[in-house]
């Protein structure tokens, strides 16, 4: 069965090849292929392609130069802090350190700055206008006492 199918396929392929050859060799009208026209057209396509590449390169170069002129210069407009270095202190912010009293060491408890919560006497550097810290809740936020009804 398989051999018969293959034979049929081979026969069909041979007939098809013969038919295609006969069809292609049949008399045809005169050919209109013009080599000179193809050369002219090909040259114009090449020229257009080169122009396109040149235009793209020019556009990229112009865009880059415009961007370079528009954006601020990195050396002159950069952050001043980085340029001056760590030696210059910030005039607005207070300096951090143990001698100013603003430093927070990890061994110091959270309530150390509070004069009422501390067990020892208040430090003289604490401001007198500062309200005392209280651990008690405000009255409005306090939970009402539970009333027993009998």
């Amino acid at each position: 069965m398989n051999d018969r199918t293959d034979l049929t396929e081979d026969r069909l392929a041979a007939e098809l090849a013969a038919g295609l050859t006969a069809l292609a060799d049949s008399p045809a009208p005169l050919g209109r292929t013009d080599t000179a026209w193809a050369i002219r057209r090909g040259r114009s396509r090449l020229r257009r392609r080169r122009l396109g590449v040149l235009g793209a390169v020019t556009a990229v170069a112009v865009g880059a130069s415009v961007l370079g002129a528009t954006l601020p210069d990195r050396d002159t407009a950069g952050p001043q802090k980085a340029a001056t270095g760590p030696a210059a202190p910030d005039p607005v912010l207070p300096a951090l350190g143990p001698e100013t009293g603003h430093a927070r060491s990890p061994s110091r408890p959270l309530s150390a700055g509070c004069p009422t919560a501390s067990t020892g006497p208040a430090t003289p550097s604490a401001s007198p206008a500062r309200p005392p810290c209280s651990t008690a809740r405000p009255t409005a936020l306090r939970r009402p006492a539970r009333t027993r009804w009998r």
Partner: protein
Amino acid sequence: MAKQTRDAEFTEFVAARAPWLRKVAYLLCGDWHRADDLVQESVTKLYVRWSRLSRLENLDGYARTVLVNTFLAEQRSPWGRWTARRRTGAVPEPAAAGTDLDLSVDLRRALAALPPRQRATVVLRHYCDLTVEQTAAALGCSTGNVKSQTSRGLDALRRSLDQQDLRDRTEHTRLTARTDLPELRDLRPAVPVEGAAK
């Protein structure tokens, strides 16, 4: 000077290969005028790359690949699809005298009924005598794809040709059976059919 040499080489190549390319294009599209257009476009594409192609070994294969790709790209474009739709109902041009007219017309009809890619595969395999691998390289697809397209194309061709054959036989039987018409009586075979007198 180099440009003139290049153009002379190109002209020589086109003069030698254009008739063959035209035949392949005709088998692909089924129309001599469209075949001319396809060859012209392919030759123009070849010229654009000619400076790099002159070092190529198989220039014929490259030209054939360009032709097939141009044909397939044209078929995919909306203009190609529209013209193909218009061409579907058209009767193909009669073949020239001296050839087997029926066979040519049948084969052309059957080829035209195939989808473009199957047609290209059948033409490349059975007219250009390419192997499966060469056809796959020319079409830019896998060998399995070429095999399946060839098989489907041959099946469709066989069905189409069988139907055409059956139709012709039916027509012939209908004509020979109507013996009452005097003008058709002469068309009956002069040689008595064997076994008819018994």
